[in-house]
C-alpha cells in the first residue's frame, strides 16, 4: 500500500469495448481483461447512452461471468425423471441439434402451430421473430405482453410513439417533470444522468407513485396514489386544464384530431367516426387528410388544414345534410366533465387541492415558460416554421400505469394530457426515438385467419402486428383465436405483444388446441414471469390419462440454472453477453437517442465457457437444418456461415439494403441505415465503440410526426413507408371501429356474443376510468390491500441471485407495509406474516415503512427463489426468507360474463395485470416455521455447472487458476 501507483499485478492486459447486458438498457462498456480473466468493466465514456457511467449490475458483470449457476453443456432430462426434478445428463450439441431437427421438422411438415416459441426479456426479437415467421408458426411472442404492452399500445395508438424503448422525456429542456409509476425502467443509466442534471438545473420533479423509493426519493414532491387509480387522477387533471383553458389550442388544432368533426348520428353506421368528405385516393397505414373542421369565421365545415382556417375545438354543429357533429375535443370535454378533482380525490387518495395545483403547475409551466429554439422546419402541409416551440412539461411513466387491467385507458389519458399541454416531440416534452414515430397504428399486421398457417410455409403475416380494425384480428370464422395465447382475438384485440403469460396455461388446457413443443428462450416461466407460479409448475409437469405430458416437449435455452431449466426436456446452454456477438437492431428495439437512430453490437471479450453456444448461432443452425427459406439458398444450401455473417448479409428482402444493423452499410461502409451489405461492418462497429449513432440535422429532430424533412428522410432510409402526417389521436377511431362491430353496426367481423359487451365497454374512443377488473371481481372487504412489486436497481429480474456481489445487497425481500396495517392486524415490524389473495397465499417477512401509501403493500420483485435454483445452496436466504409474490397473482380472472378462462389482463391489449391483485395480511402463527411458503424440492446442480465456492477472493488473472 505504500506505493499505490505501482500496478498491482502486471499481467497481460487487454481492453475491449462491447455492450452491457446485465439489463435491457444496453450501455456501452469497456472491459479490461487480465490474463484472460475479466478485471474491470467500466462505462464507456464515448458511448452516447451512458457516457461513461455504469450501474450496480453492470459493474458486477464479473460475478455473472464466473457464476456457479452457469450452464455449460447441453443437457437432456434423465429418462424416467420428472420435470421439475432437474435430473439431467449431458449430451453433445450434435445430439441436441439432431433431436430438434427431427422433431421440429415433423411439426413444420404437419402443423407448424404445434411449435410455440416464447422468449423473455431478450433483445433479439428481430431474429427470434424471423425464425418463428419462417417456421410458419403463429405461436410466437416475447416479454412485451407481460411487461408493458399497455405503455406501447396506449401511447402508440395515441401519439405514434411511446415511452419504454421508443421515446422519453426531454429533461435537458424540461422545467417540470412528472414521473408516474416508474421504479427503474429500461433507460436506467440515461434516466439517472438526466434526472440529476434536471434537478441541478433547477427543474421541479414530481413523482406519482404509491411508494417512495429510488427516483421518487429525490423528487421535490411525492404524490402517493392508490394503485390502479391513475386514470382518475389523469382525467381530473384534463378536466381542470380544460376548465381553466390551460391547454395548447394551436398545437391541438394543427397536430391532433381534436378539431375534427365526429359524426354523432346514432342511426348512422358511421356513428362515432370522423366525417369524411371524400374517399382517399390511396389506402395505406396512414390517416388520410379527408376530415372536416368547423371553421370559426365561416361558421361552416371546411377540410382540415385548409390554409387560414381556424377551426372550433368546442361546440356542436349540424352538417348541411343535418348530421349532428362535434369536434372530438368537445367530446373529450364532455367526457371529463364528471371527472372533477373532488371525484378523483375519493378514488386516488390525493386531496382535490393537490390535483388542482398539479393541473395549474402543468398548465402554467407549459404556457408561460415556453421555449423557442431557432430551428426552422417545414411541416407536411407545407408551412415553414422559423422556430421550434417547446412547452417544458415532461412526463415519464412505466409499469405503474401499464401493469393494470385499466392501464390502456390510463395511458391514453396520460397521452392526451401530454398532448393538450402541447408537449409531443417538442423540446422539454416527450421526444421520439427512431424508428418512431410510426403511423397510428403502425403498419405490420398479423395473419388474419387459420388459412395463413400452412405446413412447410412461412407465416403469411407478421407474428406480431398492430390491428387497425376488427378485420385485422387473427381469428377463425367463428371468431375464435388462432394463437395459443389467444392474442389478437376478440378477448384481447390489440394484444400487439402477445400474451406470453397465458401460453403455458392454455397449452396445458389444450385450449384452443394442444401443442407439441414449447421452446422457451431467456424466460423464467417456471418462476417470475409467470403468474400463479405454483400451479403453472404443476401444469408443466402434468400428464394426461395415457401418461403423456400435456405439453409433450419443452426446450429451454438459458445461460443459467434457473427455475425454468428444471422443467426442460432439452437444455441449450447459452453464452454470456461477454462471450458472444449480438446486435441491438433497428428492426427490433434499438437504443436510439432523441437526436437520431442509434444501434449497437456486442463483440466477444472472452471465449465461450465450456460447451456454451450463442443462441443466435443455434437459431441459424436450426434454420439452416430446417431449410427455412431465409436461412438457405434456393438450392436449399446453408446461406450463412454463422451469426456475424448472417448479420452482415441478411436483408429484409433481396436487395432491400435494410438489415439488422444501420451503421456502415454499403460496400465500403459509406451508407447509413440503408445500403448493400458491407463485409467489414463488424470491424467498423468494433472501431467505433460498438455503436452507430446517426445524428440527424436539428431541423429533423422535433415535431417528427409532422416534419416533412424528417418524414422524407425516414422514408428514403427505409424507416417508414409514408411521409404522411401522424396526427395525435385524442379521439380514437380505431377503438370506435371495434365498438361499432360489437354494437353490430358494421359489416365486417363481429365479436362472439359473450364478448360483445366487453368490447363495447372497453373500446371506448375516449379514455375513461374503471376499477381494475380483478378488484371488480374481488371481495374488497376481505382483501382490502393492493399488492405490487418494484424493480430493485441492483438486481435484474430473477437473474442476479447467482451474482455473489449483487445478492449481498438483496439477499431476501420483505413485504413493506404501513405501520397502520400492522397495528390493525396485530403484527409487528419484522414479523412473519401471510400475504393472502383470493388465489393463494405466501408467507413473508414484513417490514414497516412510512414511505408507502397505507392501502398498498409492496416488495422487491423476483428476489425470492426456489430452493437450489441458480446453484445457490438449498438453505440460501432467497429460498428461506425471500418470497415470490407471483404465487398470489392469477393468470386468469374469476369466471365472469366474458368467460370462464379470461386472462387477468387489460381487455384491450392483453397486458398482464400484475399490479391488480388484492390481498390481506395477517400474522403467521408463531408455531409455524420461520420460513417462506410455498417451498419446493431443492434443485440439484446441473451437470457442468461450475463449482460452488464456500468462499472466494476474486482477483482477476488468478481466480480460476486458484481452483
Amino acid at each position, binding site marked *: 500500500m505504500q506505493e499505490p501507483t505501482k500496478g498491482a499485478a502486471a499481467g497481460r492486459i487487454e481492453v475491449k469495448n462491447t455492450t452491457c447486458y446485465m439489463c435491457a438498457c444496453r450501455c456501452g462498456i469497456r472491459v479490461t481483461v487480465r490474463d484472460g480473466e475479466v478485471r474491470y468493466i467500466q462505462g464507456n465514456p464515448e458511448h452516447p447512452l451512458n457516457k461513461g457511467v455504469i450501474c450496480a449490475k453492470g459493474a458486477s458483470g464479473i460475478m455473472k461471468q464466473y457464476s456457479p449457476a452457469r450452464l455449460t453443456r447441453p443437457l437432456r432430462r434423465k429418462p424416467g425423471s420428472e420435470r421439475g426434478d432437474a435430473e439431467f445428463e449431458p449430451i453433445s450439441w450434435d445430439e441436441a441439434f439432431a433431436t430438434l431437427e427431427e422433431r421440429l421438422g415433423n411439426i413444420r411438415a404437419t402443423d407448424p402451430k404445434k411449435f410455440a416459441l416464447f422468449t423473455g426479456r431478450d433483445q433479439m426479437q428481430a431474429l427470434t421473430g424471423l425464425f418463428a415467421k419462417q417456421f410458419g408458426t403463429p405461436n410466437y411472442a416475447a416479454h412485451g405482453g407481460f411487461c408493458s404492452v399497455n405503455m406501447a399500445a396506449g401511447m402508440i395508438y395515441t401519439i405514434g410513439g411511446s415511452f419504454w424503448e421508443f421515446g422519453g422525456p426531454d429533461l435537458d429542456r424540461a422545467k417540470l417533470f412528472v414521473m408516474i409509476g416508474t421504479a427503474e425502467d429500461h433507460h436506467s443509466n440515461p434516466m439517472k444522468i438526466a434526472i440529476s442534471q434536471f434537478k441541478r438545473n433547477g427543474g421541479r420533479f414530481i413523482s406519482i407513485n404509491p411508494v417512495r423509493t429510488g427516483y421518487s426519493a429525490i423528487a421535490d414532491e411525492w404524490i402517493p396514489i392508490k394503485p390502479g387509480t391513475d386514470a382518475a387522477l389523469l382525467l381530473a387533471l384534463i378536466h381542470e386544464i380544460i376548465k381553466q383553458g390551460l391547454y395548447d389550442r394551436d398545437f391541438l388544432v394543427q397536430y391532433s384530431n381534436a378539431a375534427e368533426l365526429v359524426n354523432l348520428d346514432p342511426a348512422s353506421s358511421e356513428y362515432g367516426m370522423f366525417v369524411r368528405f371524400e374517399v382517399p385516393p390511396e389506402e395505406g397505414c396512414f390517416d388520410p387528410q379527408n376530415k372536416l373542421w368547423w371553421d370559426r369565421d365561416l361558421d361552416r365545415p371546411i377540410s382540415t388544414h385548409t390554409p387560414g382556417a381556424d377551426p372550433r375545438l368546442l361546440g356542436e354543429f349540424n352538417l348541411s345534410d343535418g348530421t349532428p357533429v362535434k369536434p372530438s375535443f368537445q367530446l373529450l370535454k364532455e367526457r371529463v366533465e364528471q371527472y372533477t378533482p373532488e371525484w378523483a380525490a375519493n378514488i386516488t387518495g390525493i386531496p382535490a387541492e393537490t390535483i388542482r395545483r398539479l393541473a395549474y403547475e402543468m398548465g402554467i409551466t407549459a404556457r408561460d415558460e415556453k421555449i423557442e429554439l431557432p430551428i426552422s422546419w417545414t411541416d407536411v402541409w407545407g408551412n415553414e416554421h422559423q422556430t421550434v416551440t417547446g412547452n417544458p412539461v415532461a412526463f415519464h411513466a412505466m409499469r405503474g400505469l401499464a401493469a393494470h387491467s385499466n392501464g390502456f385507458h390510463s395511458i391514453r389519458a396520460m397521452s392526451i394530457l401530454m398532448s393538450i399541454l402541447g408537449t409531443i416531440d417538442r423540446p422539454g416534452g416527450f421526444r421520439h426515438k427512431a424508428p418512431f414515430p410510426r403511423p397510428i397504428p403502425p403498419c405490420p399486421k398479423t395473419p388474419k385467419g387459420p388459412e395463413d398457417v400452412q405446413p412447410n410455409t412461412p407465416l403469411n403475416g407478421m407474428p406480431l402486428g398492430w390491428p387497425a380494425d376488427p378485420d385485422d384480428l387473427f381469428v377463425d370464422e367463428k371468431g375464435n383465436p388462432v394463437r395459443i395465447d389467444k392474442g389478437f382475438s376478440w378477448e384481447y384485440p390489440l394484444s400487439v405483444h402477445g400474451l406470453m403469460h397465458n401460453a403455458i396455461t392454455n397449452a396445458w388446457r389444450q385450449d384452443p388446441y394442444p401443442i407439441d413443443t414449447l421452446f422457451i428462450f431467456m424466460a423464467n416461466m417456471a418462476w417470475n414471469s409467470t403468474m400463479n407460479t405454483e400451479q403453472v409448475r404443476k401444469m408443466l409437469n402434468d400428464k394426461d390419462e395415457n401418461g403423456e405430458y400435456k405439453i409433450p416437449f419443452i426446450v429451454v435455452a438459458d445461460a443459467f440454472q434457473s427455475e425454468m431449466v428444471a422443467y426442460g426436456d432439452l437444455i441449450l446452454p447459452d453464452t454470456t453477453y461477454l462471450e458472444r456477438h449480438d446486435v441491438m437492431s433497428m428492426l427490433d428495439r434499438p437504443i436510439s437517442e432523441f437526436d437520431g437512430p442509434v444501434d449497437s453490437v456486442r463483440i466477444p471479450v472472452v471465449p465461450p465457457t465450456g460447451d456454451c453456444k450463442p443462441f443466435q448461432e443455434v437459431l441459424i443452425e436450426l434454420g439452416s437444418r430446417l431449410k427455412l427459406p431465409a436461412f438457405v439458398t434456393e438450392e436449399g444450401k446453408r446461406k450463412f456461415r454463422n451469426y456475424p455473417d448472417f448479420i452482415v448479409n441478411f436483408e429484409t428482402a433481396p436487395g432491400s439494403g435494410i438489415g439488422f444493423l444501420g451503421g456502415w452499410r454499403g460496400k465500403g461502409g459509406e451508407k447509413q441505415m440503408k445500403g448493400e451489405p458491407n463485409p467489414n461492418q463488424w470491424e467498423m462497429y468494433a472501431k467505433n465503440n460498438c455503436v452507430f449513432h446517426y445524428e440527424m440535422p436539428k431541423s429533423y429532430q422535433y415535431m417528427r410526426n409532422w416534419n416533412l424533412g424528417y418524414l422524407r428522410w425516414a422514408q428514403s432510409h427505409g424507416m417508414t413507408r409514408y411521409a404522411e402526417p401522424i396526427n395525435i389521436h385524442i379521439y380514437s377511431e380505431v377503438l370506435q371501429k371495434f365498438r361499432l362491430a360489437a354494437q353490430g353496426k358494421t359489416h365486417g367481423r363481429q365479436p362472439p356474443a359473450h364478448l360483445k359487451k366487453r368490447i363495447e365497454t372497453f373500446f371506448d374512443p375516449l379514455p375513461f376510468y374503471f376499477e381494475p377488473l380483478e378488484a371488480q371481481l374481488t371481495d374488497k372487504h376481505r382483501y382490502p390491500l393492493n399488492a405490487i412489486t418494484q424493480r430493485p436497481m441492483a438486481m435484474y429480474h430473477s437473474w442476479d441471485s447467482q451474482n455473489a456481489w449483487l445478492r*449481498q*445487497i438483496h*439477499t431476501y425481500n420483505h413485504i413493506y407495509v404501513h405501520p397502520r396495517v400492522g397495528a390493525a392486524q396485530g403484527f409487528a415490524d419484522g414479523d412473519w406474516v401471510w400475504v393472502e389473495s383470493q388465489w393463494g397465499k405466501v408467507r413473508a417477512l414484513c*417490514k414497516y415503512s412510512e*414511505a408507502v401509501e397505507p392501502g398498498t403493500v409492496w416488495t422487491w420483485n423476483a428476489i425470492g427463489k426456489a430452493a437450489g435454483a441458480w446453484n445457490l445452496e438449498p438453505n440460501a*436466504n432467497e429460498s428461506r426468507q425471500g418470497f415470490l409474490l407471483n404465487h398470489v397473482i392469477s393468470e386468469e380472472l374469476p369466471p365472469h360474463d366474458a368467460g370462464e378462462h379470461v386472462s387477468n389482463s387489460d381487455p384491450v391489449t392483453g397486458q398482464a395485470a400484475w399490479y391488480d391483485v388484492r390481498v390481506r395480511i395477517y400474522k403467521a402463527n408463531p408455531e409455524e416455521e420461520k420460513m417462506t411458503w410455498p417451498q419446493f424440492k431443492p434443485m440439484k446442480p446441473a451437470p457442468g455447472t461450475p463449482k460452488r465456492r464456500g468462499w472466494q477472493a476474486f482477483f482477476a488473472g488468478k481466480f480460476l487458476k486458484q481452483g
Partner: protein
Amino acid sequence: MHPAFSVIFLTTLIGVGQGLFLALVTGESYAAVNLLPQQSSREFYAVGALLAMLFLIGGLIASIFHLGHPERGWRAATRWRTSWLSREVIVLPLMMGLVFLYGVVHFFDWHPDLFGVGTRNQLTLVIGAIGTVVAFALFVSTGMVYASIKFLQEWASPLTVVNYILLGGASGFTFATAFVAYNAPDLVTFYGTWAIIITFAALVGRVGSLFRNARIKRHSNIQSAIGVRHPRIQQKAMGFMGGSYNTREYHHGKGISALKSVRWTFLILTFVVPLLLLWIGIAGNGTILLAAFGVQYVGLLFERWFFLAQANHPQNLYYQTI
C-alpha cells in the same frame, strides 16, 4: 461491542498476574519493615512469581488469538508514542520480564546488600518496586486502550482505568490469599483483609461506573450521524443483508434482558460471593479461599464480557437494521 473471548481472557488473566505480583511485593515490603513474618524466597516468592508468570503467559497466549497476524505482533511495539495498545504491548513483556527476574532472584535466593543496610531482599524489593510501577503502567495502558476511545462513552472515563486496577488487584489479592492458605498460613489474615478491601473498593468502582454509564448522554445520534434534522428517522436498509464486519464486531447480538442478567451475574460472582467466601475462608480454609478466587475469576469473565458488550459504538447508528 461484540466481546471477543481473547480480549476477555487477556485482560482478566494479566489482571490476576499483575495483582498477584503486587500482592507478593506488598507482602515482601511489609516483611521488610517487619510488619509481617519473612517468607522463604524459594518456596514462597519464587513460586508466587511463577504463578503470576503463568497468568501473564496465559493472557499473552489469549491475546495471540485476537490477532490476525500474530507473527507480525512485534510490529505492535512501534507506535508507543500515540497508541495505548502499543504501550500495552510494550509494557506487558516488560512486566513479564520483571516478574521473571523477581522470581529468578528469589529462586536463587540472591540477596546482595545493595544499599549497605544489611537487610535481606534489597534487590528483590528494588525489582518489586520497579515492577509495581510497571504493573500500574500496564493497568493504565490496558485501561486506556478502552478509555482513550472518546466516542465509546461507556469506556471513556477514568473509572475504566481505576476499575482495571482494582479488579486486577482484587483478583490478584484473592488469589494470593488462597495461595498463602497453602503456603504461608500466617499471612492469610493479611492477604485476606487486603483482598476484602480491594474487592470492596472494586465493587464501589464498578458500581460507580455502572451508575455513570446508566446516565450517559449520547453525543451522537442518528441525526448527527447522517446529518438530517428530524426527530423521526428510521433506517430501512443497511446496504447488505447477510451481515458484515460492522454488524458482527460491534454488537453483542444479545437482548437487553441477557445483558441485565450478565450484569447481575458478574456483580454477584465477582464481588458478593467472593467477599462472603473470603470472610469465611479468612479463618484459614484453603479450599474456600480457592473457591473465592475461582468464583471471582469466573465473575470477572462475565464482568469483562459485560464491559465490552455494554459499550455502545456510535457506528451502530449506521447499522440498526440487524
